[in-house]
């Protein structure tokens, strides 16, 4: 089994985190967060990958046919749903920030300190 997908997942995760840390714009922040989350898709799918395995649909196929792991695919789907929810919520908050606080920069929107 190749290590490449795991390295790729870790790389995407770290790049995403770097983006969040450096972010100066809410939209940029949300995109970075979604990017970070996509590293989990890569990880989960590569865990369930089976070489030469087909889709995990066990209808009209002989017993013992190779297939990729359906559990991690279900996990990935759930994960995508979560990601969309969080992104939508954050974007809604970003709109409110623009409307009421007149800024899209996390640095300027910080009444709570110390």
């Amino acid at each position, binding site marked *: 089994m190749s290590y490449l997908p795991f390295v790729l997942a870790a790389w995407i995760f770290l790049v995403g985190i770097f983006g969040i840390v450096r972010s100066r714009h809410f939209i940029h922040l949300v995109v970075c967060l979604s990017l970070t989350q996509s590293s989990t898709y890569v990880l989960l799918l590569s865990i369930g990958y089976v070489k030469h395995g087909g889709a995990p649909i066990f209808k009209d196929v002989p017993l013992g046919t190779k297939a990729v792991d359906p559990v991690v695919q279900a996990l990935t789907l759930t994960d995508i749903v979560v990601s969309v929810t969080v992104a939508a919520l*954050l974007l809604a908050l970003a709109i409110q920030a623009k409307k009421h606080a007149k800024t899209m920069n996390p640095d300027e929107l910080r009444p709570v300190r110390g």
Partner: protein
Amino acid sequence: MDVLVPLPVAIPLLTAAALTAFGYWCGRRLDDLIAIVATAATLVISLLLVFRSNDHDLVYWFGGWKPSNGVALGISFTVDPGGAAVATLVATLALAALVFSWRYFDEVGTLFPVLMLVFVGAMCGFALAGDLFNLFVWFELMSVVAYALTGYGVEHAGPLEGAINFAVTNSVGSFCILFGIGFLYARTGALNLAQIGEALAGRHADGLVIVAFTLLVGGFMTKAGAVPFHFWLSDAYAVAPVPVCILLAGVMSDLGLHAIARIYWTGFSGTLTAGDIRPVLIGFGLVTAIMGGFMCFLQRDLKRMLAFATISNIGAVLVGIALLTRSGLASSIVYLNTNGLLRGAAFVAVGILVRRFKSGDELDLRGRGRRAPIAGVVFAAAGLGLALLPPFGPFLANALVVDSADTLGYGWVPPVLALAAVLSAGTILRAAARIFGGLGEAKDPLFSHEPEESQEEPTDTRRVSQPLLWIPAAALALVGLGLVFVPELAGHALRNAGRLVDRSAHARELLHGVPPPPAPAPSYSPSAAAYAYGVASTLGALAFAAFGLYRRRLPIVLRRAAARVADRPVAGLKALHSGVVGDYVAWLTAGIAVLGGAVAVVVR
């Protein structure tokens, strides 16, 4: 199989769905009433589950997919008294919050009770879930609802910033959890916690297991608000509406710790030995307890003050879990429940002040609280309870830690915990004395600035002293203080902790349906040393409160010396809590790295 098991989740979620569909036509009061009734039903059922699971765990396999030959294909709820007690705490606090918000808000949409109900259902699901991925799903559900509830007052900058920081930091934490789950699944092919535990048991903990453990614990510590994952917490709790704060501070943080305890004992205890992991977790717990207490002292905004008190308490609960003994685990359950109720009560008292005087600022409110005596009594009682006053709940929990730490050779831990209690509870008592007694000075340059527009200010200033505001406060405080008088509370907590700690027997029970050997509840009474710690920390908290009030009457020489020592660290600590989400995520990453490095060093 017990039909009651899924109900604490099903009732709130179904009610929330029905309210979303039809609530608009029902009118506000009917909506509120339906939500209150549903929460009360959840409370009763969770309480029943505590008693029913007292002798053996209740395992509910959804759709009847029971495990065969120790392989769990289905999804389960696993109810032990600890988990059911947490669900009960959730429902209790939610009930108080909903009753309180009846009069607290002048105007609140149908969405508010709906979100609160979903929050309750998700937290109950999190407390009862028996497999890792469900834990993750409930975790996400409760997080997303919590972000929305925190940002409920979106027209102000404070709630916006708090909600965004909360959402981004916790999302990163949840990715870490998901990575950990993925690694564990790759290694064991299982998602059920007990089955993971069986697969890992007896093997050497290699890099993959260490990384998975680190990511899971780090992720849940982010939710709990342990240092250095805590920065979002003080921002979010300071700006959320008070009824939401009751739930956030009362129980959501503790849920993360509850998950750490269950994951360690059911999943990892067969491969990572307690002696190795103990110092790492204790370190995180103590730093959290002290740092929370210290930051608490620097606050003048009452909600932010209570948020840091929450962090300090979280540290203490974490130390209980980190002892990785039966007593430690029992202590964490007692601590989490009693402290949660007391913090909830304190938040309700703050809510009464905000509603009445349109301010949540300690200096602003100096002496004005005399006109709200019930809030004052509740606030002070919560402070005294958190100061480990014998014989109340937090004292009992601390006593379990004291007695367990001594036998482990960690005798230096209880004094540090007592110091943390002095710092945080002393600050609460200081605020109580200043607001409700008019004591102390009117200005203090040490305090952090008040966050502007932090409140979702109720618009009308009518005199509101309706019982619906103070009954929840008094009830939470009374239950929180009175819980300790439940007969044999410590004994039952110890016995049930013992069941979780015996991993292989627990796994046999969950996966093969073999009931555990019957164990009598041990009797427990705190030792003299525990009483000494309790009395000392209570007196210390009172003295610290007086110090906070009359600091500037100390001789000038002393004050100058103190300023030389303390000024820089104080300024540094304040600067750390910068309110910028990027910084928080950087700290989170650093925290995970430290945690992972420490675990790797102690295991090798």
